[in-house]
């Protein structure tokens, strides 16, 4: 027995909960072909060979949103054996509207009325037996949350699928039925009778997709158009409105006598919450507070803590189990540093260096003053060489001290990190040097880069799942819509961008909460313009090295990010890819309710694992690629492998040398700056690693600022590219996003650098011309009128 059951229903009616209850852990998650809509399938529990397909949550089978198109294409083309239609008992009228369309498909339908417990508590009454009799299909009472009625619903659906008895058609009013009969006769009479209805109704509604699908001749089209027009004249309304109206009238008629709503003016709990949360005065402060909390938990505290542990502990040197030994270790190092490191001479040298503005010296001075050995060792590691080259050599006093410092592993329960363990094993088996480097630096490093994001992301996904499930996410869109829609974004774009200031990867993944396809794509494309945590070192370095720590450099980076989003939103909104009817913002504000822990955890895990699978592959491959190109190269005329070779000599450096020409107009056309930019793809903070403090000092301020702009706005790191690929679910869109970001970054850098040079009296003619041209094109794209609204047929393509 091989049967397929489709699960259909409105959004926010407990469909996911029911699906989980029906299939348990036996699920496969993918995407519907060609769209970013998620597709879930599972095997029905306690039955053999029955597949349940979870259709996207939809209100109607209209041809306007990707979700609706996916659902109706599945229903009409794949034709499941039965439809299990879940409806919200507390909101029957609107829920049954979809039911009236599902029953026309000629597929057996079983209705599961969810939230029956809530309905009774509200004092309402629903006679399901009577409802079943009137609709002509089985109606089962369930509570997905409590798990009651699930077995009965499954049984009814399986039975319906086996018997194959379809639902009798409800009738529209006379003139409509007349037209429908004609349409059926001339277009779909070759189909089995129970399948003709749906096509006839869609043709009556002038549904472009169905028209195309049926390949009607012009004569037939003319013929049915006459029928439709006749009905429209008689009913004094357009065809689409007639059908919608009559469906709702039919529902009202069905519910009369089997549904009694208790007339109350009492406010529900949900009403009372909403009164506060979207209150005119309180809404924005509450919104800010909730956003702060999300950011604080996901990015600042829990997120950073677990990410640090993954990066420095699990995929670093190692960690103290449960923190045992950490205190003892710190005490030992403090005592050690007290004895052998801190000295007046050291203090004096660092003080002098800080006085003369050597980058990093002031941070070093802070560490010396507070006698913080850990901080000192870290800052020294980054800036030690720069200090030495500037004439403040500390190596003679500091290096032996660092080497003799107490070993972390001697204290408490020390768990070595994965790279350490693998390294030991490889040494043990006498692995070849290059292979060891490939495994440790290339593969383990790459896997570490992927997994390093996971803990933080899981924390964020849990919060997002909560906000979505409890109903607040819809209110965010309600509150923020006014601001964001001007740039072709959704109010829900706020969260990805906020999270993006911490890290772009979870930021991009957070865009999943945006239903509208275009809004989501736009959000994915622009989120990484925001300066994330890893870009801050670049900003700090340039601000201190070249601008003497001027206050405005760091804020300007954020301003630039926001400006890039706004400009891109306006420009892209007017292009063909994003044009067409504006996304209808006609959105249900679901009642607030407490979600179950199980659903939250499941949603968190689904998103987290899909990141590991889809984005992880790209990140891993890219890491290995960079490892290969940076560890092989030509030194002294010989091609060889050296994991520690200078980047200039590596394959990567050679490629960098070639493409560095591209960056000449931007003021940083050197091999090193190019390689630094390429390494920025691995992780943005790598830019600082490659492009040391000293390299910046040889640059002009304008060139350095142009370098900063380019690195802030161009393609994000591989991890973020992987996330973009995951969320776009299309290689074409991923390339488009990356390409757009690079071109945009290039144009802005070009304008800033060339005009900056011009105004400081060092400009050149071709550069200035190019800059003015680029600026003119940019302004044109910004102010040109939007494309005329396109026909609806184009929208749904």
């Amino acid at each position, binding site marked *: 027995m091989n049967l397929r059951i489709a699960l259909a229903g409105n959004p926010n009616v407990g469909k996911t909960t029911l699906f989980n209850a029906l299939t348990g852990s036996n699920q496969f998650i993918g995407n519907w072909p060609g769209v970013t809509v998620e597709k879930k399938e599972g095997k029905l529990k306690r039955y053999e060979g029955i597949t349940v397909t979870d259709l996207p949550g939809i209100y109607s089978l209209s041809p306007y949103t990707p979700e609706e198109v996916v659902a109706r294409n599945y229903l009409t083309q794949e034709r499941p054996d039965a439809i299990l239609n879940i409806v919200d008992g507390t909101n029957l009228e609107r829920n049954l509207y979809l039911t009236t369309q599902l029953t026309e498909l000629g597929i057996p339908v079983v209705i599961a009325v969810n939230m029956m417990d809530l309905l009774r508590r509200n004092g309402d009454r629903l006679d399901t037996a009577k409802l079943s009799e009137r609709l002509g299909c089985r109606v089962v009472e369930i509570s997905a949350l409590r798990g009651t009625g699930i077995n009965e619903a499954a049984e009814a659906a399986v039975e319906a699928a086996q018997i194959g008895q379809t639902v009798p058609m409800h009738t529209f009013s006379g003139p409509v039925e007349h037209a429908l009969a004609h349409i059926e006769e001339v277009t779909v009479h070759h189909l089995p009778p129970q399948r003709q209805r749906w096509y006839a109704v869609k043709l009556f509604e002038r549904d472009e997709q169905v028209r195309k699908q049926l390949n009607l001749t012009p004569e037939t089209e003319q013929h049915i158009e006459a029928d439709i027009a006749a009905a429209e004249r008689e009913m004094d309304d357009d065809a689409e409105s007639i059908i919608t*109206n009559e469906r709702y009238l039919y529902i009202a008629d069905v519910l009369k006598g089997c549904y009694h709503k208790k007339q109350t003016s009492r406010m529900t709990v949900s009403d009372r919450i909403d009164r506060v949360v979207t209150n*005119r005065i309180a809404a924005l402060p509450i919104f800010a507070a909730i956003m702060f909390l999300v950011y604080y938990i996901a990015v600042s505290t829990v997120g950073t803590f677990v990410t640090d542990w993954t990066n420095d502990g699990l995929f670093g040197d190692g960690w103290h189990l449960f923190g045992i030994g950490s205190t003892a270790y710190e005490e030992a190092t403090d005592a050690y540093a007290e004895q052998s490191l801190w000295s007046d001479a050291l203090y004096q040298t660092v003080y002098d260096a800080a006085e003369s503005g050597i980058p990093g010296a002031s941070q070093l001075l802070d560490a010396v003053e507070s006698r913080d050995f850990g901080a000192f060792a870290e800052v020294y590691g980054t800036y030690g060489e720069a200090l030495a080259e500037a004439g403040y050599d500390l190596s003679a006093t500091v290096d032996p001290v660092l080497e003799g410092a107490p070993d972390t592993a001697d204290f408490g329960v020390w768990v070595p990190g994965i790279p350490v363990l693998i390294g030991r094993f490889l040494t043990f088996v006498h692995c070849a040097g290059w292979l060891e480097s490939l495994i440790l630096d290339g593969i383990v490093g790459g896997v570490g880069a992927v997994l390093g994001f996971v803990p933080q992301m899981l924390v964020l996904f849990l919060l997002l799942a909560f906000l979505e499930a409890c109903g607040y996410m819809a209110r965010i869109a309600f509150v923020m819509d006014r601001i964001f829609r001007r740039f072709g974004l959704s109010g829900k774009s706020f969260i990805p961008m906020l999270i993006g200031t911490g890290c772009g990867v979870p930021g991009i993944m957070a865009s999943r909460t945006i239903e509208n396809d275009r809004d989501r794509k736009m959000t994915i494309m622009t989120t990484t313009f925001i300066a994330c945590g890893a870009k801050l070192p670049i900003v700090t370095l340039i601000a201190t090295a070249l601008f003497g720590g001027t206050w405005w450099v760091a804020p300007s980076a954020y301003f630039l990010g926001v400006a890039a989003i706004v400009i891109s939103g306006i420009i892209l909104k007017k292009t063909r890819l994003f044009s067409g009817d504006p996304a209808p913002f006609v959105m249900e*504000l679901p009642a607030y309710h407490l979600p179950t822990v199980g659903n939250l955890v499941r949603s968190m895990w689904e998103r987290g694992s899909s990141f590991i699978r889809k984005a992880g592959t790209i990140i891993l491959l890219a890491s290995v690629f960079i490892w290969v190109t940076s560890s092989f190269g030509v030194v002294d005329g010989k091609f060889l492998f050296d994991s520690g070779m200078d980047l200039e000599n590596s394959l990567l450096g050679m490629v960098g040398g070639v493409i560095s020409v591209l960056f000449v107009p931007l003021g940083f056309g050197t091999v090193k700056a190019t390689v630094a930019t390429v390494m920025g793809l691995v992780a943005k903070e790598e830019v600082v690693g490659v492009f040391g403090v000293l390299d910046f000092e040889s640059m002009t301020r304008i060139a350095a600022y142009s370098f900063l702009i380019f690195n802030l706005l161009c393609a994000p790191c591989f991890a973020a590219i992987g996330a973009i690929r995951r969320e776009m679910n299309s290689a074409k869109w991923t390339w488009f996003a990356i390409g757009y970001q690079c071109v945009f970054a290039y144009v802005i850098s070009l304008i800033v650098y060339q005009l900056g040079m011009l105004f400081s009296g060092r400009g050149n003619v071709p550069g200035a011309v190019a800059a003015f041209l680029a600026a003119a094109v940019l302004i044109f794209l910004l102010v040109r009128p939007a494309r005329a609204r396109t026909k609806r047929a184009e929208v749904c393509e």
Partner: protein
Amino acid sequence: MKTLREAKVGQTVQVVKLHGEGAVKRRIMDMGITRGTTVYVRKVAPLGDPIEVTVRGYELSLRKADAGMIETE
């Protein structure tokens, strides 16, 4: 022509006709705002747009521009 856009918060109005065409109109109808439906205006978003209404027993939000397409009594 009076539309839902002009209705004040706290007011209950009855829908006469829907204007406009395409995706937005269809969506509004699909969500249950059809000829003869009573719509209660619950509130306006803190920034002045969109609005929140009660229709057929549930809460719906829509932009003022779209509310302007809904003719009321």
